């Protein structure tokens, strides 16, 4: 049984930054790339299952991105797993979550995977769509915001728990194959050992292009996307109040605000 885990190297903004000249993204000069926090958790889910059923489950990290995205795959492989998959060529620039979902679905078919795990969302764009788009393309069962997963590789379904609004929890059985998006806190992700980091450098990374996955140029990039970023900007400041003055003055104003909010004023 193969579990594909979709991972993403997300862009983290510097303390102060500028918007790119075309007004559609942050200036890359102010970006730092790191593994999406949610993906750490979903990779840990897959690794724990692979360790529990060593002869029956293989965990494979997969990413869609340029060469720098390999750092994310290596980070995962430093913790476990034997190989990774990266999908990219220049035609993928400007792809929306729908296209990324199609690509993940194509990889899942190629690998004959039984399960695809993804983070609930990515911290940079926060679309929270990629996993569900992959499920739609595959026609598989899908569950979002999973906080617990129990899986027996011999069984035809998995047991899943989700957190709902108001502190309610929901337990479900889901037919396999399936796609699930994983919530933070489902486990405690491990740190990679130094040996693991060294070994990961030698683990094979397969690079695939969209055409190798059967997707034409019209189906990927901006041409194949259903949404497009028109503008990215810093909105005008809201109603935040900078409390100034001496400490006593600041404390007085703070007390006033608290009273106002409580309706005591």
């Amino acid at each position: 049984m193969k579990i594909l885990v979709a991972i993403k190297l997300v862009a983290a903004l510097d303390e102060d930054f500028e918007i790119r000249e075309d007004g559609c993204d942050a200036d890359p000069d102010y970006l730092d790339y790191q593994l999406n926090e949610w993906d750490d958790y979903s990779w840990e889910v897959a690794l724990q299952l692979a360790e529990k059923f060593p002869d029956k489950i293989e965990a494979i990290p997969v990413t869609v991105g340029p060469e720098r995205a390999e750092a994310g795959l290596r980070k995962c492989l430093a913790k476990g797993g034997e190989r990774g998959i990266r999908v990219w060529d220049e035609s993928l620039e400007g792809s929306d979550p729908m296209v990324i979902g199609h690509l993940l679905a194509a990889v899942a078919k190629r690998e004959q995977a039984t399960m695809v795990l993804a983070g609930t969302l990515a911290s940079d764009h926060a679309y929270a769509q990629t996993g569900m788009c992959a499920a739609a393309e595959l026609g598989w069962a899908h569950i979002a915001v999973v906080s617990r997963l129990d899986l027996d590789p011999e069984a035809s379904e998995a047991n899943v728990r989700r957190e709902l609004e108001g502190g309610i929890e929901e337990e479900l059985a889901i037919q396999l194959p399936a796609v699930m998006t994983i919530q933070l806190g489902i486990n405690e992700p491990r740190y990679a050992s130094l040996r693991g980091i060294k070994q990961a450098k030698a683990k094979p990374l397969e690079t695939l292009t969209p055409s190798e996955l059967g997707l034409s140029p019209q189906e990927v990039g901006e041409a194949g996307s259903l949404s497009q970023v028109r503008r990215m900007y810093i909105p005008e400041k809201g109603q935040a109040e900078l409390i100034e003055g001496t400490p006593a003055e600041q404390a007085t104003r703070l007390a006033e605000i608290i009273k106002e909010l409580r309706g005591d004023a």
Partner: protein
Amino acid sequence: MGSARILQDLSRAAIRASDPFRCAALYGYCVGRSAGKALEGVVRSFPRVARDFARAGYAPATLLDALGRSEDRRLVSLVAGNAVTPTQTLVYLTWHYNSAELSRVLAKHRNMRPELLEALPWKSDGAIAEAIAGNHGASAELLERISGAVSETGNKLLARNPAAPTAVLDKLWATGDIFVRGEVAAHANCSKTALEEAMRSDVILLRRKAASNPNMSINGLRAMASDAASEVRAAVVRNPRTSTCELPTTPDASARVRRCEARRGGLGAVLVDRLAADDDSWVRRWLARNPSVSREALAHLAQDKHEEVRRGVARNPGSPPELIAALARDECAWVRAAVAYRQDCPPELIDAFEQDSSLDVLAGVAQNPASRVHVLTRLAGHGDKDVRRAVIRNRSASAQVLDSLCEDPYPLNRACLAMHPALDSQALKRMLDDPDAQVRFTATQQYVRRLTGGSVV
């Protein structure tokens, strides 16, 4: 191989690897001007890393100086705002750039010498004058001259500046709002007239500030000790000029005041007994931590129903061994942890703690310099990263114990380990190639310091 040669090799390797973190750590120790330029070049070829160093408190002073001399205005501005930027760099920035924006940043810097602050164009820029008003390095003369050029916000900063002279404070007292006057009343240079006015004011804030003034007369403090407002009475108790003998034997109606009493040193036996029996657990909590409290009172507090009070006794340096031994068996792990951190904890108690299930207790044992080698060896292999880091923070940990932690999977632990003086130099050298940037930077910095004794080669 001589240290100069080793540094040269390290620099070449860092440049070849295009590693901005190792280059930053080596900068200032490198041999020759061209090597320095090459190291700086690598750091600056990673704009985000260069900006991070320009604003970081751990950035080497020599690197900040180099970054401050760059053509990149954003980088220069970050260096100007970095609290650890050395004065020589600030001198350069003050004289080299003619920018109001930069001057405003420099005017706030604590390392600016008085003559540098004088050189800034504060007469033509109110924001610069305001920033100087809040700079504790400004001279009394300069503060006096700018006092007429600052806004209301500037006056508030001026009133809090320890260097503000009495003449300026008198002016602020006469013209300022209640908050400015409050700061004046608390100021060590406040005139006697203003202080007395504050003492007699109807406004609680002014009386409270006057009661906190380090020059308030003993008679004034005595008078304010019976003030109707608990804030004022609490400020009287906090004022070091109030003798503990002057504290009332009858309990104050306000717990706020009694909590302040419990924190005072040199408390008399009667007062301690009264505070130890106080209904307010925070009063007892502060008393339990008070090192001047007698053993008898501590023994009483060690029986308290509130675990934080018992923990206070366990942390109190005046607690005797028999009390410590009793608290080592406390049902609350947080209390036992306080015992485990004590350097005077007997070895047999520390050995017994090793079996404790609480991570807080184990971390205390791991960090305790009195812990024996076999205990530290076992805890160095503990599954919890915080317990292992406590071993690393133990200044008495042996090189052998530390060596076993060189491959700790948690990067912060390895970075802390690199700073341990007992870590073997060979082990430190192995960390120069660590996959984590933070670890490489720290290890390189420590390795070079050991090599050079901290001086530039």
